[in-house]
C-alpha cells in the first residue's frame, strides 16, 4: 500500500510500520480520518486500505479531489452512501463548501439521532480526508474552519517525516482528476 522506496532505511521502515498501525486502528472503527503528508506517500492507497478492512468494505469507495472539482463534492457524498468518501486536497476546499460539509455532518448526525424515520433522506458516509498542507496551520491562519477540522480529524494519520512541519506547501500540487471516481469492490 504505502509506496516503498528502493534502498529503504530503517527510519523509512519504522515510519511505514507506524502508518500501518494507524491504518489498522482506523479500519477497526468508523471514525472520520485525516491523512496529512506530501505527494507520494500514497494517501489514496491508505484511505482505500482503511475502507477495504472496515465494516463498510462492501459499500462504495468514492474519490473526489477538491483542488480539481469542488462542485463534485455533493454528488460524491450521494455516491458514497453506505461506503467511504475519500476527499483529497481538503485544504483546497473553499469556505462555502467547508460550510456545506459542516452542514452535511450535522444533518447526518440529526438523521442518526432521529433513527430510521428520515432514512430516505439520510446519507450514511464515512469521510476520509487528505491534505498535503498542514491543515492545522490553515486553521490557525483562518483559512480552514476549526470546527470542521476537529470533526474530520478524529483519527489523524501523519506521514512521520512531516510531523510538526512548518512548510506552507510541501511540493507542487498533485496531478488531479476532474471527476468523482466511484469504486465498488
Amino acid at each position: 500500500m504505502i509506496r516503498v522506496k528502493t534502498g529503504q532505511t530503517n527510519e523509512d521502515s519504522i515510519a511505514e510500520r507506524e502508518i500501518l498501525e494507524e491504518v489498522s486502528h482506523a479500519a477497526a472503527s468508523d471514525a472520520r480520518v485525516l491523512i496529512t503528508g506530501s505527494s507520494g506517500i500514497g494517501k489514496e492507497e491508505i484511505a482505500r486500505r482503511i475502507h477495504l478492512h472496515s465494516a463498510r468494505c462492501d459499500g462504495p469507495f468514492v474519490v473526489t479531489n477538491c483542488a480539481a472539482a469542488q462542485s463534485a463534492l455533493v454528488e460524491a457524498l450521494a455516491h458514497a452512501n453506505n461506503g467511504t468518501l475519500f476527499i483529497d486536497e481538503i485544504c483546497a476546499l473553499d469556505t462555502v463548501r467547508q460550510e456545506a460539509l459542516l452542514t452535511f455532518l450535522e444533518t447526518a448526525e440529526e438523521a442518526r439521532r432521529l433513527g430510521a424515520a428520515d432514512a430516505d433522506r439520510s446519507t450514511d458516509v464515512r469521510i476520509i480526508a487528505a491534505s498535503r498542507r498542514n491543515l492545522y496551520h490553515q486553521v490557525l491562519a483562518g483559512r480552514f474552519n476549526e470546527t470542521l477540522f476537529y470533526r474530520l480529524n478524529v483519527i489523524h494519520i501523519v506521514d512521520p517525516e512531516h510531523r510538526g512541519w512548518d512548510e506552507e506547501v510541501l511540493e507542487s500540487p498533485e496531478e488531479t482528476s476532474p471527476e468523482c471516481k466511484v469504486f465498488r469492490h
Partner: protein
Amino acid sequence: MAVEKILILEDDPEVARVLQAALREDGNSVTVCETYEEAREHLRHEKPDAVVTDVRVGEYNGLQLAMLFRRSSPDGRVVVVTGYDDAVIRRDVGDLHAQFLLKPVDIAQLRNAVRAG
C-alpha cells in the same frame, strides 16, 4: 480503595493542574501530558485505568487517544472534558461509550465520571 492510574491529555496547563489536583485528592496516581504524541508514548509504556482527555489538542483530536487506549484496554474508562460542545463530537464520544463533560468542569462530576468511565 486501590490506587488508580489516570492519564490526562490537556494542552492548557492551568486546566490540567486543576484536573490533576482534583483526581489526586482521591488518592489516584495522575499523569498529565500536554501533547498527543507524549500521551501516546505514555500509553506504550504504562497501562492506566482511566484516560481523561480534551478534544482540541493542537493538531490532534483527543478522541484518537481514547480509541488507542480502548484498543489495549477495552474496558478502560474514558472521560472527555471539553469546552467544545458539538453534536457531531458528542456522537463520537457516545460511540466510544465514554463520559462527556463540558468545561468549566464540575469537580464532583469529574470524579464520578472517572469512576464510572
